[in-house]
C-alpha cells in the first residue's frame, strides 16, 4: 500500500509544471472546444507537445511513444487540465491510435500513426446517430459492399470537432441481418471526400463544438476497414484497455474550486465580511473539497487497477459518474457565488472570473450525458460490477 507517487513520477510532474510555468500566458486558460482563435492555440500547443514527445507519452516505445506508466499518464492529464492547457489530442492519440495498435493492419499503422504522433492531423469520432444514443449498437448508418469499396450512407451526430477534422473513424452497419452487435464494422475515412457533409450544431452555451455529419453514398476503400468486417463493436471496445481513470474531472474541479476559494476570500459581502466567512458558503466549499478528494481517490483507484492489469469495469463507471457530477456541481456553485454577476457571459462588461463559471455551468450539462450517461454507468456498476441480473 502506498498513497503517494514515486520520486520518478514526482520528478516528471515537476518537469511538466516547469514547462507549463514557462509557457506563454496566451496558451493558458484556453477552452479547447471554443473559438477558432482558441483552436489555433490548441494546435500550436499540440505541436509543442509532439516535439517534447509528450503528445504520445502513453504510447508503447515500439510505436515511437515514451511508454509512460499509467500513473505518469494520470499526472500528465492532471497538470494539463488543472492549468487549462489545450492541445492534448483525445481522438487521435488516445482513441484511434491505441485501437490501430491492437487491431490495425501494418499498412494502417504506418499510414496513420506518424501524423498523429506529430500532431499534424485531427480525427473525429463517428459513433452516435440521431436514433442511436445510449443504445449505440442499434446504429443504422449502412455500409454496402461494392467490390474493393464500401458505399456508406447515413448520418452521425454530436460529432465533436468534425468541422475541424480532416479524418473520421466511424462505426457502420455492414450486416443488417445479424444480431445488432455483430453486424457493425469500424472504418476510417477522410472528411474531405465526395458525399460527406458537416452541419454545425450550436450547444446551449453558444459554442460550435459538435456537428451532424451526413454520409451520402460515400466510397470508402476496404483497405480502411479496421479489424474484421462485422467485428467493429469489439474493435471499438478495445479502448477500455487504455487509461480511463477520469482524472480530468477532479483536476478541472479542483482548479475551479481553488479559484472560488480565492474569490470568496477576496470579496466582501454586504456585511463587509469576506464571502468565505459566510457559513453557508464555507459549508459548500468544504463539501466540494470532500467531493473532489472522493473523485480523485476513485480516479487513482482506476489507474492503480489498470497498472496491475485489472479491468476496472465498475470502478471506471463510478469515477465517471462521480467526476461528471462534481464538475457540474462546482460550476453551478460558482455561478451561485457570483450572485447577480453569475449570469454575465464571458466578455461582458462587469463579468466576474471572466464569465467562466456561467460558460462552464452551461457547458458541463453535457458531462453526465456524453460517453455513457450516468444512468448507463449505474447500469454497468449494477450488472457488471455487482452482478445484478439484467432487466
Amino acid at each position: 500500500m502506498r498513497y503517494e507517487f514515486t520520486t520518478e513520477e514526482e520528478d516528471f510532474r515537476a518537469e511538466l509544471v516547469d514547462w507549463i510555468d514557462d509557457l506563454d500566458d496566451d496558451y493558458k486558460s484556453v477552452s479547447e472546444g471554443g473559438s477558432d482563435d482558441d483552436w489555433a492555440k490548441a494546435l500550436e500547443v499540440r505541436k509543442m507537445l509532439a516535439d517534447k514527445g509528450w503528445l504520445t507519452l502513453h504510447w508503447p516505445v515500439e510505436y515511437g511513444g515514451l511508454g509512460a506508466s499509467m500513473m505518469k499518464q494520470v499526472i500528465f492529464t492532471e497538470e494539463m487540465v488543472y492549468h487549462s492547457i489545450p492541445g492534448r489530442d483525445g481522438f487521435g492519440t488516445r482513441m484511434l491510435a491505441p485501437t490501430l495498435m491492437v487491431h490495425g493492419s501494418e499498412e494502417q499503422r504506418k499510414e496513420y500513426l506518424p501524423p498523429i504522433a506529430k500532431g499534424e492531423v485531427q480525427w473525429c469520432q463517428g459513433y452516435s446517430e440521431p436514433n442511436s444514443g445510449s443504445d449505440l449498437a442499434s446504429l443504422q448508418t449502412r455500409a454496402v459492399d461494392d467490390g474493393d469499396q464500401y458505399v456508406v450512407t447515413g448520418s452521425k451526430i454530436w460529432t465533436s470537432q468534425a468541422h475541424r477534422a480532416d479524418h473520421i473513424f466511424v462505426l457502420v452497419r455492414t450486416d443488417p441481418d445479424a444480431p445488432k452487435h455483430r453486424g457493425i464494422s469500424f472504418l476510417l475515412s477522410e472528411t474531405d471526400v465526395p458525399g460527406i457533409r458537416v452541419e454545425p450544431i450550436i450547444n446551449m452555451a453558444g459554442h460550435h463544438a459538435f456537428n451532424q455529419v451526413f454520409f451520402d453514398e460515400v466510397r470508402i476503400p476496404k483497405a480502411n476497414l479496421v479489424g474484421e468486417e462485422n467485428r467493429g463493436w469489439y474493435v471499438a471496445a478495445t479502448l477500455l484497455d487504455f487509461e480511463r481513470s477520469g482524472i480530468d474531472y477532479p483536476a478541472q474541479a479542483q482548479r475551479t474550486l481553488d479559484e472560488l476559494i480565492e474569490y470568496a476570500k477576496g470579496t466582501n459581502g454586504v456585511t463587509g465580511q469576506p464571502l468565505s466567512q459566510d457559513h453557508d458558503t464555507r459549508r459548500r466549499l468544504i463539501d466540494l473539497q470532500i467531493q473532489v478528494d472522493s473523485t480523485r481517490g476513485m480516479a487513482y483507484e482506476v489507474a492503480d487497477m489498470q497498472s496491475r492489469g485489472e479491468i476496472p469495469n465498475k470502478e471506471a463507471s463510478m469515477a465517471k459518474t462521480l467526476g461528471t457530477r462534481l464538475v457540474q456541481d462546482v460550476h453551478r456553485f460558482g455561478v451561485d457565488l457570483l450572485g447577480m454577476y453569475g449570469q454575465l457571459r464571458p466578455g461582458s462588461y462587469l463579468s466576474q472570473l471572466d464569465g467562466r463559471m456561467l460558460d462552464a455551468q452551461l457547458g458541463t450539462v453535457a458531462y453526465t450525458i456524453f460517453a455513457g450517461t450516468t444512468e448507463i454507468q449505474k447500469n454497468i456498476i449494477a450488472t457488471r460490477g455487482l452482478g445484478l441480473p439484467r432487466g
Partner: protein
Amino acid sequence: MDSGYPGASRAGMDLSLTDTQQLIRNSARDFMTENIDSDYVREMESHDTGSREEIWKSLAEMGWTGLLVPESDGGAGMSLIEMAVLLEEMGATALPGPFFSSAVTGATAIAEFGSDKQKQEFLPRLVDGDLVTALAFLEGSAAWDPGVVQATATRAEDGWALSGSKVFVPGAAGADLFIFAARTSQDGAPEDSLTLFLVDAKRLDSSAIKALDSISDDRFAEVDFEDLMIPPDAVLGEVGEGWSALKRILDVSTAAKCAEMLGGSRKAVDMTVDFVQERSQFGRAIGTFQAVQHRTSDMATDLEVGRQLTYKAIWKIAEGKDYAHDLAIAKAYMSEKFPDICYGAHQMHGAIGFTQEHDLQIFSRRAASARVMFGDANHHRQIIAEQMGL
C-alpha cells in the same frame, strides 16, 4: 499559477494489500465466520462486558489485542494499516465488546505516551486481554475538543486528587484502567492545560458508574471521579501536555473507527446485493429493476470512495506523513455515508429490513453511534476548512 496541482501530494498509487495484510484479512474472515454470528451479537447486547470470555481470550490468542503494541512490549508491533484491515472485518460482523477501546485507543495511549514503568506494567496485560482500558475524556458539552474538559487534577501530598464527571466513557463498567483527562492549570488555553492520567478502576466505587442506555454496543457510562486520590506515577506523558497526546490518541482512533465503519458499510451493501437478487416481485428479481439497480450502485460507489479515503488517511498516519486533511475528509465522509448506505439498504430491503429480527438493523445502530464517535461530520468539516485556508 506557479505551483503544481495541489492534490498531488495527497495522492494514492499502490492500493493493494501486502501479503501480511492479506493474511490478517483472511484469518479475520475465517475467525468471524466461525465464531461471530448475529445470534452472538444479539446475545452480547445484554452481557456485562459485551464479550464472552472465550471469544475475548481468542482475540488475544490471535494476537489482535496486541496488534499495535510494539514487539518489545509483548505485542505484534504492526501498523495501523494492519489494524484497519482487521477492524474492517470486525465492523462487517459488528463484533461486540471492548476490543476497539482497549486494542486501539488504550494501546495507542500507553504504547506511545506511557513511561517505561507504565508500559511494563500495563501493556503485557493488555496484550493478553487481562487488562481493558476506557477513555474518560468527554464531559457535559460532549464536544471532541480540549475545551470540553472541566475535570481537575490537583497536586496533593502523595500524588494527585482528581475531580470531575465524565460522560460517554465506553465500556466503563468492565474497564480495568481509565485514561482520564483533567485540567492541571486554570490559567492557560485548554490545549495547554490538560494532563492525562491512568486510573486503576479498582479505586472507584461501583456507584460512581452510571450506565447510559445507548443505541449501539459502546456500553457508555457517566463516571464520577470525586476527590479521587491517585499516586504521582499515574500521570501519562507530561503534565500540561495532555492535549497533544490526547489529540494523537483521538486521531488514531478516528482513523481506526473509519475502518470499522467501512466494514459495516460493506456488509450493508453485500446484504443488499444478495437480497435484491433473491427477492422476487412482479415475477422477477427486484434487482432487475433499474430503480433498484441505481440505488444499489450509488451505495456501492459511496462504499468504494469510503475505502479510498479511509485507507489513504490510515496509510498517512502509519507512514508518519501529514494526515490532518485526509483524516478529516475520511471521517466527515464516513460519518455521512455509513448512515446513508444503511438507509439505502433499508429502502432496498423493504419492510423486512425494518424488523428487529433482521440483521440489517444491527448495522444501522452501529452507524448511529459511529457517525458521532470521535467527532461528527461537522466537527471534521471545520478541520477541513482550516486545511483549505478558509
